[in-house]
């Protein structure tokens, strides 16, 4: 009997230590990443970043996005729905975090489409067809182009534009900012400069709702 009690006490004790450690670690991490974002505000939004929504919108969502990332594809319509539900109150700023193999080329394609004023249609077309051009988590340029047909893009011009050094600089800058802000996974969201406490749609929604309420006049 004594042995059973000892065993149960030990098992419960170990689990409690684990849970307590997890809670302490998580809360410290949230503080750290919030401070990191606070200290490095200038790394969050750059003039070159593509943005959607009014420039003076009270709530700004900064999203580090990889066009080849499945979760980014899944979140895109969710963020768009939030924006549609709160017209003129949310602005979305995209930063590139092409972590997948070959994904930086796809970002260059998007930047080339941007020169023709078709960034968002191109992004949406590529996200919708992601499974086709990014098999096994590897972006394949040869499979990308056909999904851009029908958008009225001059594809020949794009092939020439996408190798421009300023596009390479934009990608390098975004990757550097991602490193400074400790963005290691995509998508990563910052709502009015605040990182998500834990990843997920619900935490993002909660953070956006909070920002919407606090900026309501």
């Amino acid at each position, binding site marked *: 009997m004594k*042995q059973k009690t*000892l*065993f149960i006490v*030990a098992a419960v004790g*170990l*689990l409690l230590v*684990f849970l307590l450690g*997890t809670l302490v*670690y*998580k809360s410290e991490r949230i503080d750290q990443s919030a401070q990191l974002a606070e200290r490095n505000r200038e790394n969050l939004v750059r003039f070159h970043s593509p943005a959607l929504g009014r420039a003076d919108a009270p709530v700004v969502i900064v999203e580090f996005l990889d066009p080849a990332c499945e979760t980014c594809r899944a979140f895109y319509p969710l963020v768009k729905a939030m924006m549609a539900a709160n017209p003129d109150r949310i602005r979305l700023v995209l930063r590139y975090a092409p972590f997948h193999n070959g994904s930086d080329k796809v970002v260059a394609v998007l930047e080339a489409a941007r020169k023709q004023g078709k960034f968002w249609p191109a992004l949406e077309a590529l996200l919708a067809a992601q499974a086709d051009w990014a098999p096994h988590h590897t972006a394949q340029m040869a499979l990308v182009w056909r999904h851009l047909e029908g958008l009225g893009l001059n594809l020949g011009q794009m092939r020439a534009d996408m190798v421009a050094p300023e596009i390479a600089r934009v990608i390098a800058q975004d990757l550097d900012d991602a490193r400074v802000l400790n963005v290691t996974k995509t998508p990563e969201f910052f709502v009015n400069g605040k990182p998500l406490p834990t990843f997920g749609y619900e935490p993002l929604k909660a953070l956006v709702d909070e920002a919407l309420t606090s900026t309501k006049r």
Partner: protein
Amino acid sequence: MSTMQPSARMRNETAWTLIFAAWLVASASTLGALFFGEVMQLPPCVLCWYQRIFMFPLVLILPVGLFPFDRKVVRYALPLAVLGWLFAVFHLLLIAGAIPESITPCTQGVPCSEKLIDWFGFVTIPLLSTVAFSTIIVLFVRAYFRGSE
């Protein structure tokens, strides 16, 4: 147990305590590994996975031998501990640079020679693993011989 000689019962109780101690070490190691992997989100390398494979089952096998007490549980658990120990020592030598990375099974993902944790300048995850497996083996051997004297 009531029919046993007093000295035999004492021996059995000592053996029980030793195996219980081994279970404590295995459980603490398992929770520690889960903390590194799931809470701190450090990606486990291939060698870490093999060490986990030999550590995690001990958490379940040992209590089966503790209630009711069956010293033979050592015979079932010792091979796991010994293999885990071999992987841990291999990993330790790899990190120390005694074995070149090229002959390890890590070809992609996280290189096993990367030190994700370095406390006080010498405590690494493979060192913790080696200490844990060594302790478990010593406890097993002592429990086995203590009970069968």
